[in-house]
């Protein structure tokens, strides 16, 4: 089990940022990460990092330089230095020591508000945003639904009718609008070369929007601990030219179907290696499926809002999960005639958007932008 993993993992390498360190292995340098991004969002985040650092240095440098100097200059043995045992207040100094940090924080605050709104992960990348980032938009957004499983990511391409595990392929210059959930415990999907991370939580849908503006490779990983296979929940992300993307989707049409039974087996706790084994796939490539039911993502979300308890045997990630008997709910039954599930409230898309302050709104078909009959 060790050796195939080794070779597979070698495919997702991360380079060192030119900023911070020496690069011992040149071969790793072509894998993008936060410090060497593939797309404008991550590049913007890196720029934020640099400018925030510069700004903070204004407050920090005086300490880094001044503290050692003061300690040395006013050592007891140095009788030339002044001594003012009763000196305990100076108005100008007070103004400076409160004022300068306040000014910095005001600047940082304005800055971070703008940045946070600008790269809100829920915001779809449209023409206006593309102009701001000075990038091209070539084609409509690619919808990808990502499901966190123990211990691999399932990427569903509902429009292309395919699904992959162990690799995420996106076309260059087309925005990606990703919806996320998990079918086990909470996870956090992070693609450092593209956009950072967002949590994926069961029964809820979160969103992440990004775009790649150059061809290249980065990686996607889980950063929220979810069990022994956590460290292996990392797989390559490839940004490919548009033609290659079309070829890739076309090639996938011959793949085995991800029907309910296959999904139940895939959802069982196990690393990608173990999943490959379960599906009898040789080598170390990704698992690719076709998608017989385009509402698979919705059904996975619906599992947690049926209004019925989930038996441990039917809960992926549970130690007694049984892939042979596990089943997903029927959308029509869960969402009923009015498009609302019986279990509403916190388990809702809108609540996840609103966080602590948002009004709980129902997880409805309308909110998810889908109709029960697909």
């Amino acid at each position, binding site marked *: 089990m060790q050796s195939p993993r080794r070779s597979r993992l070698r495919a997702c390498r991360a380079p060192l940022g030119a900023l911070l360190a020496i690069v011992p292995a040149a071969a790793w340098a072509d894998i993008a990460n936060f410090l060497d991004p593939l797309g404008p969002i991550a590049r913007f985040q890196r720029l934020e990092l640099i400018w925030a650092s510069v700004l903070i240095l204004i407050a920090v440098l005086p300490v880094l330089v001044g503290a050692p100097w003061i300690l040395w200059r006013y050592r007891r043995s140095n009788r030339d230095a002044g001594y003012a045992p009763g000196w305990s207040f100076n108005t100008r100094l007070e103004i400076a020591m409160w004022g300068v940090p306040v000014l910095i924080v005001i600047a940082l605050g304005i800055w971070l508000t703008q940045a946070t709104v600008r790269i809100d992960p829920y915001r779809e990348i449209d023409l206006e945003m593309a102009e701001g980032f000075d990038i091209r938009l070539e084609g409509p957004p690619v919808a990808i639904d990502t499901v966190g499983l123990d211990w691999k990511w399932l990427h569903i391409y509902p429009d292309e009718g395919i699904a992959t595990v162990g690799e995420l392929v996106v076309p260059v210059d087309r925005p990606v609008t990703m919806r996320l959930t998990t079918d086990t415990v909470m996870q956090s999907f992070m693609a450092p070369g593209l956009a950072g991370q967002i949590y994926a939580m069961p029964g809820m849908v979160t969103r992440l929007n990004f775009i790649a503006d150059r061809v290249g490779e980065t990686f996607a990983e889980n950063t929220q601990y979810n069990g022994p296979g956590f460290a292996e929940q990392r797989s390559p992300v490839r940004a490919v030219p548009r033609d290659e993307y079309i070829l890739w989707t076309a090639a996938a049409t011959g793949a085995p179907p991800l029907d309910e039974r296959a999904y139940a087996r895939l959802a069982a706790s196990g690393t990608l290696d173990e999943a490959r084994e379960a599906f009898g796939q040789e080598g170390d490539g990704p698992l690719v499926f076709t998608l017989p039911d385009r509402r698979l993502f919705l059904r996975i979300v619906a599992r947690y*809002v049926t*209004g*019925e308890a989930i038996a441990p045997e039917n809960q992926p990630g549970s130690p007694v999960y049984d892939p042979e008997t596990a089943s997903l709910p029927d959308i029509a039954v869960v969402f009923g005639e009015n498009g609302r599930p*019986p*279990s*509403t*409230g*916190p*388990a809702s898309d809108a609540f996840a958007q609103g966080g602590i302050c948002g009004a*709980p709104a*129902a997880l409805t078909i309308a909110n998810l932008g889908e109709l029960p009959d697909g």
Partner: protein
Amino acid sequence: MSNAKPMNAHPGMNLGYGEGAHDAEVKVFGFWVFLMSDLVTFGLVFAIFGTMVEATAGGPGPREVTNLHSVAIQTALLLGSSFAFSWASLSMKYHEGRWRTLFYLSFAATSALGFLIIEFLDFRHWIEIGAVPQRSGYLSALWALVGLHGLHVAAGLLWVGAMTAQILIFGLTDDIKSRVTRLGLYWHFLDIVWVGIFSMVFLAGIA
């Protein structure tokens, strides 16, 4: 100790001007701090309840669990208990004898016991209609909030019992007066929390 000039720190307890008053001041103040912390606890459980009102998961909701008659009786009993406790505090201040205080205390305790019994009947009814905390997030929060308050009342009853024994053993000494005062604060505090519960859980639930 920190007060140089004599002052009657706790007129409500009638302790006079001595060291005992300062001691009582420290202890009662400390108990206020505890109550504030406890209030935060209740506030958080209220907040969790607020986020889970909708999370009925198809199970029994506010309408099914609210029995206004029962809630009204509980409210009357608990407020009555608080009222009786006020009389206990007053008689502790104005009457040297312990019996009158004990008499009112027993009123307060009986009334609170009645509250607990009615609440228990409510709980039993909830179980009968399947409104158990294992059914949904809403019911978990409901049981936690109402249960936490009930547990506080039960603990208060235990305290009243212990206090009664202490009064019988020691009489109404300065120490005991300070303890009764703190118990009184606790008692009225539980009333305030109950006002929150009946308005935010039950009245708002069926509104």
